[in-house]
């Protein structure tokens, strides 16, 4: 244990920087008062947004803020603790309410090492600037030399100036030109989306540059090390915490072809320096092969990507290396950019999303295998959008492009500009470079095609295609403008309901990780009974049963674990540890690890139930914030009828598969009354009003948020009622401990 006099407090840096771009003032302030209740990350950022940005603020007004925050576990050595989160006002969903913009890369850890838990950017500059944080020194610098540049060049130029160990989080032309689909890119291709780039653009803030040489002080470093060793050896799986390999392997009892544990004999990082490196058969209890488990390039881009694969990489502090690093000569020729790759949509935007609606010739062979040209198509788009700082609304941009092309909407609406794009070459599979102009024109927000970058609530209305929302292939799940992020196809009502919760796509992976982990359904049902109270918490894929209380519990747990991870900040793309690859522990995970790490890092004794409660507080706070700013059917601001105004699922989940009834094998179709029941039960689990879905007086008081209760009461938007905390809460502390005999915290 290192002394606090030298290294400062445990876990948190203890302070947040505030930079006002209107008057140039820079200050730091303590975050101690928020730590216990709001943890950090998403909790801090949402608390600041609630307290400081009044309802009704426009996203591009100087009064809007962009708040970056990390949590006590960020950069502490806890596995997967490299994430960070921003909160600001949405630029692309109805009523422009508060959204979270999570990202990985190096930004979060570097910010923490600079001695800050957060950065509040407020006001607006009248000339291009960037914010420089170099440990304690914070300044506003002239960005005129990099304004107009892509994120790659900006990164390089600012690293030349401030050091190659500096992390640059920059906007590209999309943000500068206030395109609602603009993101902030750090570390080449790690994106904080949801329009954050446009918010920074409206403030003329080109970048945040951070250098950090300080320490995250840790109360019990030996326990952090021991817990890490235990977790990596036997609890942690691959990307999305998939815990079985994708192919039959000698060591593994199960395998599942959908698994992201894609390493296998004969599969190589074929472009590795000095010769190919085989991914092989990495096993549990082999901490030094963990980083080979997830071969994401061929998983996403098909077998032809193998020869371009240099290695995998990913976020700071994560042993699950899920991020493709490929060098494709044709991509370099077209874009000028060398290494590319991602782990999410920008790794396979064309083949998985565009082509789900509009075919492109030559992307697959006759048997459906992705071709070499498909790799080029995907990576040209990947390199281009990251450089432009162009966000895709979780692939909606690619689906919308395909829709508007296929239906002739582009031809009808673009006029003469339609002919400026080589649609024929793109669709013939012969002109990957054709994407560059399409995407660049969207990013620059001047040509007509850029309307697609304003989101479906804008373009569907302007171009008279509102029926797109009710079309299954659109994947649009909510009329307020966001698509599915593991929705009804993921445990039916569970995924469907949590897709309604936020003001953008949910980014919840707790449930989909369990769905795709590769264990057999019977075993998963046993595990579901232990974790959420009944085997009927889960259904097999496309073979659903009506809503029940255990599904509500599972849905609640999926939401609070996601929010918790975004507060701590650890990666919800892999956490929580609900299952494990080790047969020796009957494949059970360890749900207490977040709390044990929290205690080891901060020195504060907590249980997982305490942390779930804090996450519930953060979720409820965001809902309360939305109550203040959401407009009712008559357009009046201030509305608490989430059920009828906000949590409205689109029509296609009820109308798809017309020949099959809901709750029969072969469909993930929903049933309307049942979905309303599902909402009611999840609202109840949160202590919210069971009819409206908004926070109640009881629930806010249970969570210690009397100030918020008072605000909503003044607005006449606070119902009484709500189930008291003790009556609705299930205890999770130690729930899997009988499987966790090797957990060092239990024997300490």
């Amino acid at each position, binding site marked *: 244990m290192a002394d606090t006099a030298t290294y400062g407090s445990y876990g948190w840096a203890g302070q947040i920087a505030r930079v006002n771009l209107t008057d140039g003032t820079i200050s730091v302030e303590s975050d101690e008062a928020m730590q216990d209740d709001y943890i950090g990350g998403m909790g801090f950022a949402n608390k600041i947004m609630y307290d400081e940005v009044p309802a009704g603020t426009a996203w591009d007004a100087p009064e809007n803020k962009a708040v970056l925050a990390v949590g006590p576990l960020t950069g502490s050595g806890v596995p997967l603790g490299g994430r960070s989160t921003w909160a600001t006002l949405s630029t692309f969903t109805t009523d422009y309410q508060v959204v979270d913009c999570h990202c990985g890369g190096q930004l979060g850890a570097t910010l923490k090492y600079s001695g800050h838990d957060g950065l509040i950017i407020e006001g607006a500059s009248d000339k291009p600037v960037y914010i420089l944080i170099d440990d304690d020194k914070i300044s506003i610098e002239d960005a005129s030399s990099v304004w107009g540049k892509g994120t790659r060049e900006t990164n390089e130029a600012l690293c030349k100036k401030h050091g190659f160990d500096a992390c640059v989080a920059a906007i590209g032309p999309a943000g500068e030109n206030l395109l609602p689909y603009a993101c902030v890119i750090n570390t080449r291709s790690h994106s904080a989306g949801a329009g954050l780039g446009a918010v920074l653009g409206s403030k003329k803030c080109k970048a945040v540059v951070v250098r950090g040489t300080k320490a995250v002080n840790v109360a019990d470093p030996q326990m952090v090390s021991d817990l890490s060793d235990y977790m990596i050896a036997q609890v942690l799986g691959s990307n999305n915490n998939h815990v079985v390999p994708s192919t039959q392997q000698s060591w593994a009892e199960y395998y599942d072809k959908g698994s992201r544990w894609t390493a296998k004999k004969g599969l190589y990082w074929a472009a590795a320096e000095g010769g190919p490196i085989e991914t092989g058969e990495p096993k549990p209890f082999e901490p030094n092969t963990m980083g080979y488990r997830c071969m994401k390039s061929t998983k996403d881009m098909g077998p032809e990507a193998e020869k371009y694969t240099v290695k995998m990489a990913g976020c700071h502090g994560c042993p699950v290396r899920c991020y493709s690093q490929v060098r494709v000569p044709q991509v370099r020729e077209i874009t000028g950019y060398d290494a590319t790759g991602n782990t999410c949509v920008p790794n396979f935007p064309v083949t998985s999303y565009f082509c789900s609606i509009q075919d492109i010739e030559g992307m697959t062979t006759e048997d459906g295998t992705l071709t070499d040209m498909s790799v080029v198509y995907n990576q040209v788009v990947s390199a281009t959008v990251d450089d432009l700082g162009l966000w895709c609304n979780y692939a909606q941009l690619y689906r919308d492009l395909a829709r508007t092309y296929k239906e002739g909407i582009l031809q009808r609406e673009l006029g003469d500009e339609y002919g400026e794009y080589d649609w024929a070459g793109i669709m013939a599979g012969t002109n990957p470079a*054709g994407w560059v102009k399409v995407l660049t024109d969207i990013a620059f927000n001047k040509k007509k095609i850029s309307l697609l970058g304003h989101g479906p609530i804008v373009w569907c209305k302007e171009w008279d295609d509102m029926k797109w929302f009710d079309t299954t292939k659109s994947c649009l799940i909510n009329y307020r403008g966001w698509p599915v992020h593991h929705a009804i196809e993921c445990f039916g009502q569970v995924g469907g309901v949590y897709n309604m919760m936020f003001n953008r796509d949910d980014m919840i992976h707790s449930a989909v990780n369990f769905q795709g982990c590769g264990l057999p359904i019977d075993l998963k049902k046993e595990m579901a009974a232990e974790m959420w109270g009944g085997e009927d918490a889960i259904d097999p894929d496309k073979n659903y049963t009506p809503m029940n209380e255990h599904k509500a519990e599972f849905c609640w747990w999926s939401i609070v674990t996601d929010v918790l991870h975004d507060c701590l900040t650890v990666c919800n793309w892999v956490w929580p540890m609900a299952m494990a690859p080790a047969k020796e522990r009957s494949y059970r995970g360890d749900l207490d690890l977040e709390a044990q790490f929290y205690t080891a890092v901060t020195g504060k004794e907590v249980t997982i139930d305490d942390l779930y409660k804090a996450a519930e507080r953060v979720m409820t706070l965001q809902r309360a914030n939305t109550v203040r700013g959401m407009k009712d059917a008559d357009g009046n601001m201030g509305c608490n009828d989430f059920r009828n105004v906000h949590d409205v699922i689109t029509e296609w989940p009820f109308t798809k598969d017309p020949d099959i009834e809901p709750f029969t094998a072969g469909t993930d179709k929903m049933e309307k009354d049942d979905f309303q029941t599902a909402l009611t039960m999840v609202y109840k689990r949160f202590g919210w009003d069971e009819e409206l879905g908004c926070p109640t007086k009881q629930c806010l008081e249970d969570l210690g948020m009397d100030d918020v209760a008072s605000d909503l009461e003044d607005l006449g938007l606070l119902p009484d009622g709500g189930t008291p905390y003790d009556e609705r809460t299930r205890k999770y502390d130690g729930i899997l401990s009988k499987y966790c005999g090797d957990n060092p915290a239990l024997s300490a």
Partner: protein
Amino acid sequence: MNENTALEQVGSGADRLDAFFTRRGFVKVSGAFVASMVALGLLPDEAAAQPTSSNGQVDYYAAPTHVLKVNRARCTGCQRCEMSCTLTNDGVSQPAAARIHVHDGFQYGAGLDTGDGIFYSAEWMIRQCHMCKAAMCQTACPHGAILTNDNGVRYVDADKCVGCGTCVASCPWNIPVVNTVTGKSAKCIACGRCADQCPNGAIELVEWENVNHSSGPTRTEDPAPLVSETQDYVGGGKIAQ
């Protein structure tokens, strides 16, 4: 296999100790003897710069028992080695004070001219202590703060260290770092914790050997033109516009 070109600048005088001292060998010699050996070209110049003890005698140990060996092609840049190092040795997570260095090369390798880093070759240089037989960090320390333990490992005595940075400057690879928080230097003691935590087995703690040329190239064979020097456009617009 590529030659490690960055090492050419390094005087390899340390290697000449081989003829005189066996590994883990140990002698106490006078400063005058050291000076004469330097004059004969048998010891590096740095050896004569400062005695490591104040009584005019110099402690020479040959190599320690172990050394870290790295393979950059296997490194995936997670930087768990840096965090693990400092958790074990300092009780905090502080990559900038780690005894192994990944984070400063992750983006652009050893420098923009190398064609390395995640923006270019997706390879980057990892720098680790070579456990030199004649440790220039030790011989250069003006305060005699770098001592040798029974395993032949040089370590920093924090009570003696004043954080002047001479060890950093004298190390051919700039491996020691002066911690910005404590103002004290730190160097690798071959504890192996970084290797334990490497998810790709890119770091190994091995029986001592000369690792000067073992860590792979320090630049890529086919560096791409620099984005900031060749492109004044965005999104690859050169082709499209």
